[in-house]
């Protein structure tokens, strides 16, 4: 059960930087989710850790020992790929014992591990089946069992739930996490699904363009995003631009129209241009209570538990809000509403150098 430490890991494909000086430390027994949009360098990161890809620069340490140039099979880091890559010519049983076979384990040990693994992933009845005869969920569990049984200490999961249908994906989240925890393995799980990352991870690392933007517990990443991008990628946010009037004990921001908005305390000097981000779920609307801003309801989308409300502010900017479904019937398109939020829910960021629109782009 290693700690994994990456130091200044870089990898480029031509002009594209898939890893741009990655620093990361994964603790022993930790379940880390790496969250980022497609093309952020998530898979590159996993491939470098597993040894399938050599970094251009930087070092990889397992338990403090330099593993950068070590052979793939010496790293004891099992990769579980999106497609599972179950060997089609082998049965479930042979797939699961593949790692043990390779290492020349004796029959008794193999038998033991196989039985416990089949039990663990609830496939005891299907040990003679071939992968193509299994459902997607069973294939996923077989691949997981194979990785767990290989004797690896580190589990690298590349979007392991991606190919499953929505319901199964959600039920396997907790199952996968508890299996890994039971076996006390360290796991690095890569995903582009924010819900998955928030539910499963001990800590979440948000990655973009080969750089880690923020690493922290799901709650930290959710409540205190480090950049506007994180605020918007992990739960959608509304953004307001303006000039900072004060930054402590809470921040005051004056928009171009002269409206003053409130957010958490920050370290941005007065007079600087800044961006205030509020999660759409924390953006509240009311017809009675006065708020910071006025807006007109453009449309309401029913999402089951919540209503998604699109609003048009007086300056022409569009924002959104999520309100509980019981308010259906109390608001309607065309209504004039007041918009407000708790000041602790507003995070103030310095204006991104490339502009706000560029910052929020998800490529």
């Amino acid at each position, binding site marked *: 059960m290693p700690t994994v430490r990456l130091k200044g890991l870089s990898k480029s494909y031509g002009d594209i930087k898939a890893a741009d000086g990655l620093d990361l430390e994964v603790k022993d027994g930790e379940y880390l989710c790496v969250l980022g949009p497609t093309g952020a360098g998530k898979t590159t990161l996993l491939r470098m850790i*597993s040894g399938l890809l050599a970094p251009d620069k930087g070092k990889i340490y397992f338990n403090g020992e330099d593993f950068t140039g070590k052979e793939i099979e010496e790293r004891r880091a099992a990769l579980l790929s999106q497609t599972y890559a179950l060997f089609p010519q082998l049965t479930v049983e042979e797939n699961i014992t593949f790692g043990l076979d390779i290492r020349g384990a004796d029959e008794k040990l193999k038998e033991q591990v196989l039985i416990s693994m089949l039990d663990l992933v609830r496939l005891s009845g299907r040990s003679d089946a071939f992968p193509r005869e299994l459902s997607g969920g069973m294939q996923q569990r077989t691949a997981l069992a194979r*990785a767990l049984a290989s004797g690896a200490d580190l589990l690298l999961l590349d979007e392991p739930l991606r190919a499953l249908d929505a319901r199964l994906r959600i039920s396997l989240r907790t199952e996968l996490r508890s299996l890994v925890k039971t076996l006390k393995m360290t796991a690095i799980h890569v995903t582009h699904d924010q819900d998955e990352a928030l539910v499963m991870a001990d800590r979440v690392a948000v990655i973009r363009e080969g750089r880690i933007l923020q690493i922290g517990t799901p709650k930290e990443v959710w409540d205190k995003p480090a950049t506007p991008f994180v605020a918007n990628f992990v739960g959608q946010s509304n953004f307001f631009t303006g000039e900072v009037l004060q930054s402590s004990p809470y921040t005051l921001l004056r928009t171009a129209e002269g409206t003053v908005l409130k957010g958490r305390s920050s370290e941005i000097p007065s007079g600087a241009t800044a961006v205030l981000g509020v999660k759409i779920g924390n953006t509240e609307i009311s017809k009675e209570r006065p708020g910071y801003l006025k807006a007109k309801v453009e449309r309401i989308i029913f999402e089951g538990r919540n209503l998604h409300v699109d609003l048009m502010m007086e300056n022409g900017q569009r924002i959104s809000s999520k309100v509980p479904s019981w308010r259906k019937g109390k608001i309607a398109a065309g209504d004039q509403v007041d918009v407000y939020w708790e000041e602790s829910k507003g995070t103030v960021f310095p204006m991104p150098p490339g502009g706000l629109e560029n910052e929020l782009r998800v490529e």
Partner: protein
Amino acid sequence: MFFLFFVILPTVYILSYAFTNWGSIEQHVLDDPAMLDLILNAISASFQIAGIVTVIDILAGLPMAWILVRKEFRGKRFLDTLIDMPLAVPTAALGFSSAIFFAVTPESLAAPSFALNIVTSPYLLIILLHVVFSYPYMVRSLSAILVQIDQTYETAGRTLGASALSAARTITLPLFRAGLVTGMILCFARSLSETGGTMIALATMANPGSFATGPTLIGDWKHDLTSNPDLAAPLAFVSILLIILSLVLLVVLKLVIMKIHLPMGRIWPRPERLFSRGWFPKTKDGMAVLFLVVFVILPSFFIFTYVASATPVAFDYGPFMDSLIYSFLIAAVVTVIDISLGVPLALYIAKNRKGKLPEVLDVLVNVPLIVPTAALGYSLGVFWTGQNIIPTFDALLIILAHVAFTYPLVVRNVAGAVEEVDPAYEETARTLGARPVQAFRRVLYPMIKSSILAGAIMAFTRSLGETGATQAVVASAITAPVYIVELIKSEAFYTAGLACIVLIIVSYVAMLALRYVTNGRRSR
């Protein structure tokens, strides 16, 4: 390295002859109008025939490939095997068999009365013969690509209002240029380099006259070389011409097909709709099957009826059996060499697609495929006997020659298969603790085994049936196909027929055995 030194270098070595011995070429070829005429006629006949054969193959092969891939019907598997059958018959036997079927044959042959017996032009006969053995290649290459083309494109086209024919023509056809190129190159090269069958067919028919193709010239002259050393220069000249022309053609063919935009976009909704329904598709399918039976299957196996109907003649099996065993040993050794050296190269090419070197290698691998084997064989013979690097045993030379043109078959097959396999399998195996060798043996190898086997079977049957290269490299060598050629030349037709049948049966048994052995190992 092996590949460059043993395959490519000897293949093109003969080109250097043009520079070093220009004088003798001038003296014996260029200054001898009769000789020059003979050579140019033979070579132009070769290319014309190859061109016509390729066109026929495309026209007749396309509907057949379509039937095999897109249609479901009873007896489909049977049809599938039927198409492959001529592949297993050595071309020497094919040549004899088709000639009896199609051509007007001399009295002494006593062909059965129900043979077609109508073809008197050697030119036409050779075209028919070449269609017989190149047709399966075309159908195979086309259907291989057709399988990969997602039918949803066509379905989408249909739902957007296109008729079946319009959809197939404008959507699917342009997608399989690659398959078409492979098929065309294979057919063209096969036709261009065929020697044994052509020689036999010519010897079998009544009045072949002085008709010759490039490869048969090489075969005949190499045979006479010992008695007439002046033939060395014309021999080299023919080989050089064949090699250069075929290489130029390969490049041109590739460029033309990939670059030219056929006016595929235009649509004639009315006539195409008309052709999509009713009698036309059925007729097309019927014609395709009829073509297969009359022009491919019947000629291939007509030999059986001939032998059954002819008056038996005593046959001394001894020398033929010797030649057969000799052929088999050579084919076996060749196949083993192909596999053990071809698979690593295929892996290298397939896994380093992006690099420069593998790309170059990939192109070079095709060179021996397109160069006529007789020219290749002659070049090889001159190279090795001239170098004194290795002892020049006949068998060794023949093996080297056969490796040169069968090696690409294995490399192509295996490289294609490896590229199909998702690299995630091997990578996952590595992260599960497998060393590279283990990952290959336990994971990749079982997945590509059938392709290796297919390559091996192709290499084996090609080696077994090869005449041109064998004759060109060692004139006196007696392999089974060469022996049959000799028999027919001495008008021992019945014996030749028997020998052909033995050869056919033995090749079949060998193929079946090979399949059985590998299947048996799979199920442990």
